[in-house]
């Protein structure tokens, strides 16, 4: 008889709540919130309370499998690994190492992502390593890297409590980051003013002070509009602009045409409300901006993020307590996967692959020659596969068959691949296409670290054994690295991996398992004596002076037409998570939101004679899906919303893979669609 309460980190969103997994005789029986956790304060969302449900589900992959005569058949680990190594070696010999793409995972630990990118670079010889940040905050990384020199959340989650004004845009915080949303509610109860800018009404917008609804894809217009109002009314922080920024004149010129009238015509936001919002944000002493996919997932996403940075810099709301630019990162470890170098153009710690000095440093640290050319992003890899340039993919914990845009194109592209290996915890839609499937351990079955959206390094502690023969991804990556003939994969614990990662990643220099066991450390934490950094850009920006970027509004790549009259925007709901592999196997969550749906405005539904709950088909130039209509006034007329969690009505069948040229993030938030009675 053994009962344990194991303190670990939630595997769902990027907030990084800690809780105790209750384990009785090796079975997970429940979750208890951690009352002393600095980030969650003893609170959790419904997904957190169900975080144990999917772990010991009968669908868990338990044995390696190889596709034989079209069917996946159980094999030994040796057989599976031999096949992977054999195929990858063959393909490298025939087509070169850049014909292989490795996908790291925002669901894997920092240690695992570090090893996966090391394996790709040192063992395979390619920089083609990427992960799902490409789909969500890639434009944050590029945008803020330009503006500030660092792409991460500038302040911390607990600081929302004390903000006087919170500008929330492109984030349905109470549904997508409930515990960050809870902090905003605390601020609200203390008298803070909340401004929400979103095409959809959300639980937060309904209790906010100012709620603005813009047409999807018009964000630069309203942001520039706000900046112009702030400049014209003398509300700009002149001291800050003078001493801490550059290129102000270019910005001033760029925003000049964004009068409130022009903004109203472009975005649909009434001009008096825009003025009010701008004044409230500028005049508050402690104002924070929180944003997510609504800002990033556009064909000009990098520019939109730069516009947000402009707004914060023009008012000087950065570098101080309860201010800043705060991207809310989606996955439990998307921040860490970026930090650990799971990116085609960046080594661990955001050091550039094409920077000779950086490359020499890693070549020395890993004792091997490293490829020079930046690799392919996840989204352009699909195009390259279609063109026959990419021949193999090794995928860790990513279900792009549901999460990538334009699924029809993805399906066609991967048919051209000669080899696909997938390591996952369930037989996802992507794993179903693989030649080799490896059973992986999930968060509750291994030690390691996740990095939350506010840069805190959170600890995972093993609570139960993985099912069957499943193994943790760090052992899989090490095994692959060794079998591919590389040295530098001899690790006997995640702690050892972190020790190496810390030695080459300046921001993680002071991180080790002993220190983080008892305290919360946020990077940059360069040395063992350093106590971590809460607020970024306090004295100066990472790049020195903040760079204003003169960005201008550009419409989405696909706008409504006569045949496709609606703007389709996609997103999440509270109860399901991403491609649903975990939440749809959790009874309490599945029960709350079991079916796919499309939100359509009441007046639009009326003109199309569509009733609430009626079966409809939604189509775009790329495909068509059938699902139930939810008639609501939560979304503005002319737009429709579909959550992307449901495989049976995959929203991404319809979305447009129009990529932002700098970050390669797809325009998941705006494309053209039509809706018809089924």
């Amino acid at each position, binding site marked *: 008889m053994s009962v344990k309460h194991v303190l670990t980190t939630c595997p769902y969103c990027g907030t990084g709540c800690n809780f105790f997994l209750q384990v009785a005789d090796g079975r997970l029986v429940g979750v208890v919130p951690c009352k002393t956790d600095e980030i969650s304060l003893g609170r959790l969302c419904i997904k957190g309370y169900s975080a144990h449900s999917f772990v010991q589900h009968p669908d868990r992959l338990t044995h390696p499998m190889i596709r034989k005569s079209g069917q996946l058949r159980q094999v030994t680990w040796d057989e599976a690994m031999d096949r992977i190594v054999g195929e990858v070696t063959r393909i490298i010999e025939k087509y070169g190492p850049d014909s292989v793409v490795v996908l790291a995972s925002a669901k894997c630990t920092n240690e695992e992502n570090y090893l996966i990118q090391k394996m790709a670079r040192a063992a395979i010889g390619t920089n083609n390593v990427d992960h799902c940040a490409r789909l969500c905050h890639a434009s944050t990384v590029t945008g803020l890297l330009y503006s500030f020199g660092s792409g991460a959340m500038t302040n911390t989650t607990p600081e929302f409590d004390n903000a006087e004004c919170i500008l929330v845009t492109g984030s349905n915080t109470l549904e997508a980051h409930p515990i960050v*949303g809870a902090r905003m509610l605390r601020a609200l109860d203390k008298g803070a003013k909340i401004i929400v800018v979103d095409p959809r009404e959300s639980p937060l917008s309904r209790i906010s002070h100012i709620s603005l609804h813009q047409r999807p894809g018009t964000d630069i217009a309203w942001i520039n509009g706000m900046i112009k109002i702030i400049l014209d009314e003398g509300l700009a922080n002149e001291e800050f602009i003078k001493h801490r920024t550059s290129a102000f004149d270019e910005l001033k010129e760029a925003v000049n045409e964004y009068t409130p009238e022009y903004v109203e015509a472009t975005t649909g936001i009434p001009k008096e409300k825009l003025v009010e919002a701008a004044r409230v944000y500028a005049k508050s002493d402690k104002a924070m901006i929180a944003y997510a996919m609504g800002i990033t997932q556009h064909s000009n996403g990098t520019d939109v993020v730069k516009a947000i940075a402009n707004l914060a810099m023009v008012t000087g709301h950065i570098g101080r307590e309860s201010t800043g630019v705060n991207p809310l990162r989606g996955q439990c470890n998307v921040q860490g996967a970026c930090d650990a170098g799971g990116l085609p153009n960046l080594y661990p710690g955001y050091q550039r692959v094409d920077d000779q000095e950086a490359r020499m440093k890693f070549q020395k640290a890993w004792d091997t020659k490293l490829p020079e050319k930046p690799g392919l992003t996840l989204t352009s890899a699909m195009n390259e596969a279609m063109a026959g340039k990419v021949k193999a993919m090794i995928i860790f914990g990513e279900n792009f068959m549901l999460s990538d845009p334009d699924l029809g194109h993805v399906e066609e592209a991967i048919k051209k691949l000669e080899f696909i290996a997938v390591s996952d915890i369930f037989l996802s839609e992507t794993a179903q296409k693989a030649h080799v499937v490896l059973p992986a351990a999930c968060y509750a079955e291994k030690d390691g670290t996740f990095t939350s959206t506010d840069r805190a390094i959170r600890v995972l502690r093993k609570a139960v054994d993985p099912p069957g023969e499943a193994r943790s991804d760090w052992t899989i990556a090490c095994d692959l690295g060794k079998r591919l003939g590389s040295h530098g994969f001899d690790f006997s614990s995640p702690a050892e991996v972190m020790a190496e990662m810390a030695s080459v990643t300046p921001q993680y220099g002071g991180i080790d398992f002993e220190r983080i066991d008892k305290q919360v450390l946020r990077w940059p934490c360069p040395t063992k004596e350093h106590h971590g950094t809460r607020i970024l850009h306090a004295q100066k920006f990472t790049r020195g002076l903040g760079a204003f970027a003169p960005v201008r509004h550009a419409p989405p790549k696909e706008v409504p037409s006569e045949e496709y009259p609606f703007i389709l925007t996609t997103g999440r709901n509270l109860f399901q998570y991403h491609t649903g592999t975990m939440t749809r196997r959790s009874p309490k969550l599945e029960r709350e939101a079991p079916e796919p749906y499309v939100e359509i405005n009441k007046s639009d539904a009326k003109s199309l004679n569509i009733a609430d709950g009626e079966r409809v088909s939604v189509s775009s130039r790329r495909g068509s899906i059938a699902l139930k209509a939810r008639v609501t006034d939560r979304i503005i007329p002319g737009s429709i919303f579909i959550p992307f969690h449901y495989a049976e009505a995959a929203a991404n069948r319809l979305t447009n893979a129009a990529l932002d040229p700098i970050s390669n993030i797809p325009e998941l938030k705006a494309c053209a669609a039509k809706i018809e009675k089924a």
Partner: protein
Amino acid sequence: MAFDERAADHLLLMREEHGNVAPALVSKGEEIGDVRLDIPYQLITILETIYSWVPTGKIAVITRRCDEKALTELTKRGYVDEKRMVKIGLACSKEQIARCRCSDPVPSKVDFGEPNTPAPRDDLSDKLAQMSVEDRMKFWVRQFRKCNKCFACTHNCPVCFCDDCVLEERTFVAEQGIPPGLSFHMIRSYHLIDKCVECGECERSCPGEIPLLTLRKMLAKDIKEVYGFVPGDPKTVSPLNTTLEGEPMEDECDEC
């Protein structure tokens, strides 16, 4: 704290772990560690979850007065065998009493902590009682708009024991998204009216910091006024389980 006292085979307590305060079930022969009594967890709720996995032996639990009452409600309904339970009485500190606006803070036997006087009143209850019906509704609608159906209130409540919770059924909570409407909160309030021991765990674990404990207190006052009933007394039966003449009926909860 030691196993020898009161011949317990297992101890359910809070202790320091990894720089935090954690609940723990410690069995005889295992290290107890650094016990922490300043951050109380709702150990009775935790007991309910793990109880079936501890088939034998006596379990000693750190119980505040509210925990004692919760344990009584569970033993009355047969969920826990009281012969197996040993209570280690913890008297709450002044700060904890103030935070809970607690009117009954001292356990029947005090093993740890200093007994303190109850809080004189719950200011918010008084304020709400004096409001008009319309204003009261405005207050609660504003509060419940913050609810995002995390189910923390039910999950952490020691006297919420239904395996199939009615709040998960579309029949009773019709809203498909969040926030759920008033039916969620009213149904929960009704279900708890003869069981709530005012431990305050619901309020403390609510991400929206909705003053749930105040609503519980107001309804506790109501059931006392209407039926003279206070939960947590081993000798009394809920008025909802007796006829108008006081004869016992089937437990209302089994009706579900």
